[in-house]
């Protein structure tokens, strides 16, 4: 029985509703004191409940084998593959032997890649000057650009003048998944050891605190956290330098930010979800990005292009929109960050692939120099390649991101997007981003949600089955699947918070922002109230929940490798 949402806004009912929840669950503070909690156990993952304190793990062999490499790269996306290819190109050119290992959680390279994508080919051509002969799938050059503002029924066309970031002359429409797949083949041909289907689950450290490498995920753990007969530990991959290229909001990067305090001097990252382009700094907890997207497709200016077509694929992924202001420190002893993980997307241009690739290339060059330098003296066992950050700051990536840094924040003013356009016209188009000030973002995305009582619920139209669709049939098209008998990889630091805080204050935004229907508030079997049900198998690895949870209680960790979406050329 769902309480009608309109009633929740009335103070009396709000109080009543809260009391009903408290009737079934002990208040948050009490659960810390008392040993009996009536919150149903949701999280069973060993990152929340360590195995060395778990009786079921007594006597299980936890030994891990280790392999030594020169460089280990986490993530086979455009950035990771660029770095791998560049390292091997340099090794061949200088006749040195470098062992490069690349791990990727998707079952095949490209299966978790999702993007527009309109590629600025500069960095790609730098890496593969003979891309045409090699048959790279850059088949569709841009011929025409159209930009417009959509009102409820109409479209206001906006001219794209040369010099504006949205101008796409010289760019290619690509299926990024196929391009990434092609890059994977090139990497393998050059001798990179590519291991799809193996997720990097843990960062390893030397005693001196520098990064030693990573460990791949353990396999064979039951849903309730106990070991299966097929339990096996992951493999440790040790390296002199580990490159983290996990893409937007990587889970290992999240740990590294904390450990090395890499975000001390930058703004929090802000995000969008690519469905396409619903900014995650929205305030109304009733907003559902998926349903906004369905609604957008019905707009009179969009509809004609889609009519008569057939829906053949679906996917979602968070992307970073923080730009220049949100770039963290990029290097630390033993490793560095490249690609969308730290976040080099040029927001007004809506492109991050070219900068991601360039960051991978620069990382490879900097690492190669250190590895082959005769006078190498390192304070730590894991190499600290500070040269990478310096090289990046001297490259076109930095100049490009600097020049567009104020465009998105300028949309946060009183005039909204129109203010942003005026700002862009003056300061970017004419002055090329040389103004001396840097505007700030309005804080982290998860802080921006207002309580449900202060917002109006949004009535979304029903999907028509021709152009707009329901969520679950869309998720089926993503081909996502996970071994069902494993602990849910969407872990909660505190199992009681979803109902006690997220549902009671924000009306459970996770049931709306997840583009795969992972989170559901279902009525409890006996009595009143709800519990959170996590359908981990549906997850498409978009990371939106980790980003937007107002309580920051959800911690996305990597599931068993090979699980997740099966995108084909997305």
């Amino acid at each position, binding site marked *: 029985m769902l309480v009608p949402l309109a009633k929740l806004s009335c103070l009396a009912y709000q109080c009543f509703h809260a009391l009903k929840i408290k009737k079934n669950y002990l208040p948050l503070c009490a659960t810390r004191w008392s040993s009996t909690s009536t919150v149903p156990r949701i999280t069973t993952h060993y990152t929340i409940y360590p195995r060395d304190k778990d009786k079921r793990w007594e006597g299980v062999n936890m030994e891990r*084998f280790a*392999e030594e490499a020169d460089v280990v790269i986490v993530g086979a996306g455009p950035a990771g593959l660029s770095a791998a290819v560049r390292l091997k190109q340099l090794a061949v050119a200088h006749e040195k032997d470098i062992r490069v290992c690349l791990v990727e959680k998707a*079952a*095949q390279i*490209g*299966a978790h890649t999702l993007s527009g994508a309109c590629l600025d080919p500069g960095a790609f051509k730098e890496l593969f000057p003979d891309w045409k002969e090699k048959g790279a799938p850059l088949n569709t050059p841009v011929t025409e650009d159209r930009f417009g503002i959509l009102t409820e029924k109409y479209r206001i066309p906006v001219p794209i003048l040369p010099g504006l970031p949205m101008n796409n002359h010289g760019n290619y429409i690509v299926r990024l*998944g*196929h391009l990434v*797949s092609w890059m994977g083949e090139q990497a393998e041909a050059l001798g990179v*050891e590519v*291991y799809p*289907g*193996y997720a990097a689950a843990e960062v390893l450290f030397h005693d001196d605190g520098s990064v030693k490498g990573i460990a*791949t995920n353990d*396999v*064979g753990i039951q849903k309730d956290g106990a070991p299966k*007969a*097929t339990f*096996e530990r*992951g*493999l440790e991959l040790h390296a002199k330098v580990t490159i983290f290229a996990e893409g937007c909001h990587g889970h290992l990067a999240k740990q590294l930010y904390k450990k090395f305090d890499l975000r001390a001097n930058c703004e929090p990252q802000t995000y969008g979800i690519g469905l396409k382009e619903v900014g995650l700094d929205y305030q109304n907890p009733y907003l559902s990005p998926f349903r906004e997207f369905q609604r957008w497709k019905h707009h009179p200016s969009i509809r004609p292009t889609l009519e008569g077509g057939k829906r*053949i694929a679906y996917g979602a992924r968070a992307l970073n929109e923080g730009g220049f202001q949100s770039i963290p420190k990029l290097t630390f002893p033993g490793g560095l960050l490249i690609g969308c993980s730290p976040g080099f997307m040029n927001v007004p241009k809506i492109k991050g692939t070219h900068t991601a690739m360039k960051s991978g290339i620069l990382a490879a060059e900097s690492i190669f120099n250190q590895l082959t330098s005769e006078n190498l003296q390192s304070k730590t066992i894991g190499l600290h390649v500070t040269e990478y950050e310096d090289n990046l700051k001297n490259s076109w990536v930095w100049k490009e991101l600097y020049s567009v840094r104020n465009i998105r924040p300028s949309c946060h003013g009183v005039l909204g997007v129109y203010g942003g356009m005026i700002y862009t016209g003056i300061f970017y188009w004419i002055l090329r981003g040389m103004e001396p000030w840097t505007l700030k973002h309005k804080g982290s995305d998860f802080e921006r949600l207002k309580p449900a009582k202060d917002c109006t619920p949004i009535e979304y139209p029903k999907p028509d089955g021709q152009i707009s669709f329901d969520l679950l049939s869309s998720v*089926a*098209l993503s*081909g*996502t*699947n996970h071994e069902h008998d494993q602990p849910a990889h969407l872990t909660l630091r505190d199992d009681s918070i979803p109902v006690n805080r997220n549902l009671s204050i924000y009306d459970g935004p996770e049931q709306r922002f997840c583009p795969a229907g992972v989170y559901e508030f279902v009525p409890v079997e006996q009595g009143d109230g709800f519990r959170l049900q996590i359908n981990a198998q549906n997850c498409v690895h978009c990371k939106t929940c980790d980003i937007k949870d107002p309580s920051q209680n959800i911690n996305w960790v990597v599931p*068993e490798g090979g699980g997740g979406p*099966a995108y*084909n*050329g997305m």
Partner: protein
Amino acid sequence: MAELRVLVAVKRVIDYAVKIRVKPDRTGVVTDGVKHSMNPFCEIAVEEAVRLKEKKLVKEVIAVSCGPAQCQETIRTALAMGADRGIHVEVPPAEAERLGPLQVARVLAKLAEKEKVDLVLLGKQAIDDDCNQTGQMTAGFLDWPQGTFASQVTLEGDKLKVEREIDGGLETLRLKLPAVVTADLRLNEPRYATLPNIMKKKIEVIKPGDLGVDLTSKLSVISVEDPPQRTAGVKVETTEDLVAKLKEIGRI
């Protein structure tokens, strides 16, 4: 005792969780770039072979797959599960589309003789064509005994006791080695393919011509279509309505 050698055949098929799409020209289904994995029954066969090796009853496990270059991924998975060697019988993509159980059985039979194996293990059927023929045909070509739909396999000296799941219940056979066995669902639960094993092993590539096998097929696919859309059902209130409706559509 551990002198026996096992040949396990594995097939690369479209992953079971992927939504299949028929190609617009109706010659087949879309396979380009689609996620593929090892046929689940083949995984069970590999697992059984590896378990026999762990029990020291078998000396060597050889994994083989027929098809285009991508088959090597599947062989690599078998190696990661514990097979010792991999053989890829390379068939160019255009011909691979016409590879059927008969052709594969010819290849396996020749390979089994060449490698002098004592046991050929396969999955009972592939989840893409559901033919359930390759194991049986291989046994026919080799003139070896066969135990299909195996749910339990026990080695007893030079004989193999195979418990089979059949419609009537469970049937137990005793086969003299060498033999062919096809794996059914409840034979075992396959282990995960882990990284350390993949790194060290090699795959040998050979051509069907090297084995002297002719891959011509007498079958040709005329068309592949989606199943017809299910039309909506109709609810009626009373039995009289039901009879009237049935008469209306000419069923009675």
